[in-house]
Every structure is written in structure tokens, then in C-alpha cells.
């Protein structure tokens, strides 16, 4: 084994040549490198630039028709549902999951709130609480299947989407509760639709709720241990577990919170459309994922900011309204959104190269 001794000596001599191993080498160069670093630190920067740019361009093209408090707040009202659901979707995607059942949970929760009030005559606030509880429970079921049974989130929520949607149609007997009936007998169900004006700007409770929700979640994700654990679990669950993070508890909290937020979205949906309809909100899945992806949250988990999702939802809202006011075919909106999705993921890949 003198060979081992020999190689040991070679190690020594090779190693003793360099003394500061931990010295930082700045391998990023030039403007592009700086930009890459900036985006790596602030992933919601890109959607913010796109949002501001889109508002400016439409403002220049359309003038005061677009650039008014009324139009601006109209956009907020139009994106409130997608914004709330996108907040739930963001949490799940940060843990490297995906939730295809968000839309179904939202609709089913709103149906529970409506039917419990009208079919059984339960006091409206209690019916609302039942709806919120059911949303949380479905979220818990998703979380348990993902965390304990170790099924892929895509499959779990694909199945849950079908199950919840079918239950929704079976339970509601495909029956819509009319807006006038709700207004007359259970106005609390439309609480999120309550409007108030400041100047020419019109806000609804739903809009305020969306903004408050995003800011509270942004705070929790950045400044609490729970938030750091969400990122760590999405980044590398095994490493998180070894560092002493309770991965199961973190995942359960994320899926349950997501279910609860979707149920709130269901309540807001009643405020937005006035009625309780089991067929509404069918696009919430795709729209929420679109907002999250355009918002710069990585589908691989652990990267991105929930503010980005708000920007993502607003970008879609600005494009939709702006192009409509320009008189363009609605298909142009979808075309542009499609381009944005692909561009956003390409940027994400580029940012992630910093770790390569």
C-alpha cells in the first residue's frame, strides 16, 4: 500500500499550492451578467417591467380611454378571481407542485355556500364557513396524498379536479341560484362584490381582498420561518428534511392554505358574477397557472415571488382590456399571452443557469 502513501503525498503537494480555497470568484461579467444576477435576486422584476411597459404602450395608443382611474380599476376587478386563485397556485408551485383542482375547489365551495343557505336555510355566515371548511378539507386531502402517499401533485390534483367537479354537478343538480334571489335573501354571499368609489376609481371588497392576500402572503413567505421552509421544501425536499424542516407539515399547511384561498375565491366569485353557478370559473386552472408562470415563479419550485403572480395576472388583464379597447380580435390576446408564457419560462431557465 505504498501506493496510497505515494498518492497521499501527491495530494499534499497539489493541495498546498493554493491556500485560499474559499475565495469568491466573480464569474459574471458585463451588463448581461449583471442583469442575470439582478433577476436571480429579484425574480418578479421581469413581470413588473412587462406590466409597466404594457400599461405605457396601451396608454399611448388609447389615451385617457385606457389611462383613467376607471379603466385601471376595471382591470383590477376583472383579474380579482384569477389573482386570488393564482395566490393559491403560487404557494403550491413554490413547493415544486402544481394544482389542477383550484378551479374545481373554487366552484364547489361557492356552490356549498349557496346551496347550504338556500336548500337547508342555514344562516349565511355559517354556510360561508362551511364552504371555506370544505375547500380547506379538499386541500388537506390533496396535501396528504402528495406528502404521505407520495403521489405526484400533477396526478393527485388531476384526479381531484374531476372528482370535485363531478361532485359539484351531482350535488348542485346543475342548478344555478339566481342573482336576484341572492340579493333579496342572502346578500352576505355577494359581500365581495360590494363596491365603493374613490374619485373615478371603483374598488370592490374582492379587489381589496386580493391585494391584501398577496401582501400578507408575500410577507409570510419572506419574513417568517414557515415561508423559508416553503422555499426550502420546493428547492430540495431531502435537503430540507436533513436540515430539520418538517417537510410533511410544511406541505400540508401549503395545500390546506391553498384550498382555503380557493374557497375564498369561490366566495369572491359570487360577488363578481352575482349568482351561484356550478358551471362558472372553468378557466381558473389555466388562467392561474398562466399568471404564475408569467409572474416568474419557477415550475421547478423554490424560486420566485408571489408578487410576480399578481403582476402576471395584471399583465393578462391589461392585455385583455387594452386589445379590446383597440378593437382587436380577442384571439390576439391569447396569442400574446402564449408568447409571454414561453418567454417567461425561457427567462426562468436563463436565470437558473447561475447555479450551473
Amino acid at each position, binding site marked *: *500500500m*505504498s501506493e496510497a502513501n505515494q498518492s497521499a503525498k501527491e495530494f499534499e503537494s497539489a493541495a498546498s499550492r493554493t491556500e485560499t480555497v*474559499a475565495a469568491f470568484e466573480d464569474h459574471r461579467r458585463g451588463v448581461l451578467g449583471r442583469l442575470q444576477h439582478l433577476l436571480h435576486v429579484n425574480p418578479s422584476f421581469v413581470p413588473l417591467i412587462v406590466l409597466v411597459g404594457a400599461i405605457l404602450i396601451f396608454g399611448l395608443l388609447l389615451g385617457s380611454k385606457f389611462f383613467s382611474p376607471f379603466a385601471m380599476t376595471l382591470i383590477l376587478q376583472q383579474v380579482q378571481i384569477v389573482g386570488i386563485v393564482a395566490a393559491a397556485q403560487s404557494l403550491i408551485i413554490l413547493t415544486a407542485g402544481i394544482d389542477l383542482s383550484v378551479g374545481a375547489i373554487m366552484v364547489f365551495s361557492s356552490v356549498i355556500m349557496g346551496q347550504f343557505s338556500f336548500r337547508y336555510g342555514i344562516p349565511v355566515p355559517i354556510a360561508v364557513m362551511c364552504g371555506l371548511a370544505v375547500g380547506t378539507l379538499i386541500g388537506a386531502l390533496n396535501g396528504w396524498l402528495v406528502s404521505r402517499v407520495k403521489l405526484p401533485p400533477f396526478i393527485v390534483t388531476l384526479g381531484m379536479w374531476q372528482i370535485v367537479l363531478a361532485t359539484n354537478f351531482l350535488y348542485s343538480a346543475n342548478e344555478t341560484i339566481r342573482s336576484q334571489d341572492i340579493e333579496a335573501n342572502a346578500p352576505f354571499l355577494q359581500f365581495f362584490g360590494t363596491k365603493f368609489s374613490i374619485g373615478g376609481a371603483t374598488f370592490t371588497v374582492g379587489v381589496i381582498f386580493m391585494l391584501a392576500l398577496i401582501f400578507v402572503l408575500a410577507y409570510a413567505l419572506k419574513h*417568517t420561518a*414557515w415561508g423559508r421552509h416553503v*422555499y*426550502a421544501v420546493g*428547492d430540495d425536499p431531502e435537503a*430540507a428534511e436533513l436540515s*430539520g424542516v418538517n417537510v410533511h407539515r410544511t406541505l400540508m399547511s401549503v395545500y390546506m392554505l391553498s384550498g382555503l384561498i380557493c374557497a375564498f375565491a369561490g366566495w369572491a366569485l359570487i360577488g363578481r358574477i352575482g349568482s351561484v353557478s356550478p358551471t362558472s370559473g372553468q378557466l381558473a386552472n389555466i388562467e392561474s397557472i398562466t399568471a404564475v408562470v408569467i409572474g416568474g415563479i419557477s415550475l421547478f419550485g423554490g424560486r420566485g415571488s408571489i408578487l410576480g403572480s399578481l403582476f402576471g395576472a395584471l399583465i393578462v388583464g391589461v392585455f385583455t382590456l387594452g386589445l379590446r379597447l383597440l378593437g382587436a380580435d380577442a384571439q390576439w390576446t391569447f396569442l400574446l399571452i402564449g408568447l409571454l408564457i414561453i418567454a417567461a419560462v425561457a427567462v426562468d431557465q436563463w436565470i437558473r443557469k447561475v447555479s450551473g
Partner: protein
Amino acid sequence: MSGTTPVVQGRGIVKRYGHVTAIDHSDFELRQGEILAVIGDNGAGKSSIVKAICGATIPDEGEILIEGKKVNFNSPIDARNMGIEIVYQQLAMSPALSIADNMFMGREIRKKGFMGKYMRQLDRPAMEKFAREKLTELGLMTVQSINQAIETLSGGQRQGVAVARAAAFATKFIIMDEPTAALGVKESRKVLELIQDVRARGIPIILISHNMPHVFEVADRIHVHRLGNRLCTIDPKDYTMSDAVAFMTGAKEPPKEGTA
């Protein structure tokens, strides 16, 4: 055996997986202030016995005493709460999070008063200050910023942060499972220096390694594991690397008294 109580003492530990006996009535001893290397061929059970000590597996028989007191760990978290830290080969860090976030992962400090108690806000300045101090103590503050993401560090720097994290929170001892296996020659060197720095602070270390030059460089004693049992414990000053390998593989009879 010296006069002081050993930090860890394992007596007659047995662990079976079905028909396979991974640990067969093995003893184990870690003394105050030493680096104990654990070597053994693949499948000899050296990982199993260390896992039994840190609560990652629960032994079927035998007892483990830490500083003379019997312990029953149910998970590595129990061990961690007693001041036992583990450094893994595969770098147990969250790459996208910062150095400070990673050092405090799972044991974050919250602010005092209303913001901490009700808003559950993290005390970042305190965590950053502590992390910076610990890295400086071990001569690792050549990193640019404590808020730098782990993924912007080299493999050696990452392992340096892992060692600093372990050294910062270990009050009893540190287990290092192949800490240099994933690293290049230069980076291994730095980590070996760190290991010696940590010992100089009086924290004993269990070092599991395949790398004989590394083992012979830093270890005070070497625990040779063979066929699920402690074959012997040798002093690296009395034996050569080829002797150690011969004991490990069974090519040579171990010394009779078996203690160093």
C-alpha cells in the same frame, strides 16, 4: 480508557434488516476532544452504527450512552436537540436560499416583542450577525455576502458552510459522513483544515471516510468496522494505511488488545 466519561458509548448494539444483521453486538466509543475515524469496507455496517448513534435508525438491541446517560433517540431531530450535528456527503442545503437562511434552517430566530410573537417575523439582523461570526471564526468569510445564495458557492464553500453550521450548533459532538467525498483535492484540503479547527474548539468528531490519507491525517483514533462489528480501534501513529486496509478487508489479524 482515560479517566473522563466517553462522549458516546455504545454497548452491544444490534440492528437487523430482515435476515441481514447489519450490526452484530457492536461496541462504540467516542472520547472527549478527539476525531474518531470510522472505516470499513462497503457493507461492513459503518453507516448503520453511526445512524444508530444519531437516531436515524433505532437499534434492536443494546444501549447508547451520551456523556454517561442512556438515550433513546427516535429521530435525528431528537439527537439534534441534544446538541449532536451531522454533516452529510450530499450537501444538505437549499441551493436557492442564502447562507444565513441555510444556517438557521429549522431553527430560525424570531424577533422579540409584537413583531416576533404575533407577526412571527424573523430576526434577520441577528441571524446574519451570528452566521457571519461563525463563518469568520472558521476563516470562511471570503464569501462576498452572507445573503448570497448557496448555489453561487463552490462545492468546497458549501461544505464549509455545512461544517460551520454544525460547529455553531453542536454542543456534544459532530458526525461527518464522507464530508470530502464530493469535493476536489483543493476543496477537500480546506474542509480537512476546518475539521481540525473544530476539534481545536473542543468538539469531538466522528468521521466516516473511505479516504485513507484523509483519515490518517486528521484522526486521533481509528475504529475499524468489519462484518457488522468493531474489529479493533487503532492509533494511526502505530499503524500504516496498508495495515488499516488489511484489517478492514480481513487480510491481517487485528492487534489483540484492540484499543488505542
